[in-house]
């Protein structure tokens, strides 16, 4: 047991899984000698060599597409996309292949692939370094989507993602990488995909969040008796835990960084409106990014839901 940050936790999960299973390989731009632009893969190249920690050309279609072929063959590729905003070239390979090779071949081929990417606002780099487009992947049947929020769950969830027989998009909140530390057990452990965690129990209202926003939602919760759910797996998400909590509290707030329109908050709200409306005392409130392209550094704090905005939502929901 030791305190570590999310970069270290992800790194440890990678290292342990690579030690455990000789078929796990890591590939992406600058993941080798350089250790990745966030240093997540630091030390792996030295430990496992260039055949298992593979520096690739600048080629997102190729990286994701080749990983589909590798995964179908039986190797377990863990792809790093340098920033979520650069995954878009790989979307066709994810939507048309990774997600459906099992279905298209009626189980003859599968795609146990992990695509990792840092996501969200956090490092004040130029455009497309701050995207939070998790909803694109959540809409695609056949793909799993996971977002850790702490070093502990980063390690456990990534371990599960690597072992999962389905393609998993694993999004690491760039803002949290080094800004929070937490206890992480030594050795391997896994946290099941598809299960949410109740970050904080409470009775007055339910808050659903993930990644960076989980922490903001929790900070804003001071003085409120609310239940905070850390979704962790966004697709398929833990409807049971969410609905159970909503039925208990009768009020729901969803907080996310992505633009509101068709962000994952829409699905959470729609689920509540479809399956638990008789329990709802008031409107489902979504606190989310504005209807705008994610801005560059100088406006990013205006874009990202802050503690004040979240608090206002809590106050509002409590008025019902």
């Amino acid at each position, binding site marked *: 047991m030791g305190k570590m940050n999310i970069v270290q936790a992800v790194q440890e999960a990678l290292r342990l899984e690579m030690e455990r299973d000789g078929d796990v390989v890591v590939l992406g731009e600058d993941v080798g000698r350089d250790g990745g632009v966030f240093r997540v893969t630091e030390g792996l190249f030295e430990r496992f060599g260039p055949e298992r920690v593979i520096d690739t050309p600048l080629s997102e279609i*190729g990286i994701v597409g*080749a990983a589909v072929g*590798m995964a179908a063959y039986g190797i377990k590729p863990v792809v790093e996309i340098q920033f979520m905003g650069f995954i878009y070239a790989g979307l066709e390979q994810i939507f048309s292949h990774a997600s459906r090779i099992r*279905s298209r071949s*009626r*189980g003859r081929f599968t795609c146990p692939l992990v695509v990792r990417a840092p996501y969200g606002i956090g490092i004040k780099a130029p455009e497309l370094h701050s995207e939070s487009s998790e909803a694109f992947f959540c809409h695609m049947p*056949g793909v799993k989507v996971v977002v850790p929020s702490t070093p502990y769950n980063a390690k456990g969830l990534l371990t599960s993602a690597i072992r999962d027989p*389905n393609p998993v998009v694993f999004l690491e909140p760039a803002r949290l990488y080094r800004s929070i530390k937490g206890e992480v057990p030594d050795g391997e452990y896994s946290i099941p995909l598809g299960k949410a965690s109740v970050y904080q129990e409470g009775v007055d209202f339910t808050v659903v969040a993930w990644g960076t926003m989980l922490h903001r939602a929790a900070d804003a919760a001071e003085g409120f008796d609310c239940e905070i759910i850390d979704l962790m797996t966004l697709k398929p998400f833990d409807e*049971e835990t969410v609905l159970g909590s909503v039925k208990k509290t009768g009020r729901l707030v969803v907080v996310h960084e992505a633009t509101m329109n068709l962000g994952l908050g829409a699905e959470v709200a729609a689920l509540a409106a479809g399956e638990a409306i008789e329990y709802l005392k008031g409107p489902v409130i979504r606190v989310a990014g504005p209807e705008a392209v994610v801005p560059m550094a100088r406006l990013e704090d205006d874009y990202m839901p802050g503690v004040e905005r979240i608090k206002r939502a809590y106050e509002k929901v409590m008025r019902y």
Partner: protein
Amino acid sequence: MPIDTLDRFEVKYLRIIDENGTADPSVMPPLPDALLKNIFEKIVLARTFNQRAMSLQREGRIGTYASFYGQEAAQVGSALAIAEGDWVFPSFRESGVLIALGYPMRRLYSYWAGDERGMQAPPGLNVFPMSVPVGTQAPHGMGAAWAMKYRKEKKASITYFGDGGSSRGDFHEALNLAGVFKVPAIFFCQNNQWAISMPRQRQTAAKTIAQKAIGYGIEGMAVDGNDAVAVYKATTDALDRAKRGEGPTLIEAFTYRLDDHTTSDEASRYRPKEEVEAWRVKEPLIRLRLFMEKKGLWTREYEEGVGKAALDAVDREIEAYEGMAAPEPSDMFRYTYDELTARQKRELKEFGWER
């Protein structure tokens, strides 16, 4: 050295048997008679499958179908070079490749009838589902080859695509990666001169697809795609090189799509009859027949026997296909993830799809 020449390249073209069935001894490989007969018989079988598919489509017994008529030499010639353990990444026009590999024709028919079970390759046959989005299979071929290299296995992958597919970013990225990592991957382009209504000349300003290999620092060559023996030799050589660790090859087989693009297409809208007729006389069976006759391997009775056997086999497969139970709607869920999700379980009930 103000204007210096950094490098020079050539694009090579291989033909072994000409349109009169005459083989050039300087390049003719010593192939066993059994192999030549196998090529011939598989071409006949594939063509029979294809003809029957066209009529089944007209009769509404299968759906939209993509004929490979005219491309049998490229498909069968290359397929017979593939060894057990190799992996195949076809496009939607490769039914002929699959048939030559022994893929159950009943499944091919069921695929063309809109049934995913048709693309469930039988165990031991490493054939990926035909890729419908053009060119997107190239990175898979690269990746599988990468995995073979990683595992130090003496295997190779072969990816099939068309002239149209060479324009896609997937092609570029796959071939570039294959070059960098020197993986045992063959990229086999059937340049059938058309991508639906787009003639090859307007698909790219490059005179050949083969020369695109230069941009990736890999082997590239062109071959007469209607000469089954040349295709067989080019593919065998490339696979051998790949398995020896000498890296990927791009092969361009010059051939021609004698039919419409698919049964939904009407090629007469965009291409001249004369062009089709000019290619018709170059179709692969004519020269193979002449060549084999000269070698004493072909007689009319032989061909009749082969044709009859092919028809019988195809008919049996059609019967088997048509006897298949209908697919279950719940299969949609069964193969989305390895396990049903909570939502799928709810929907199973709601839709009345539980078995």
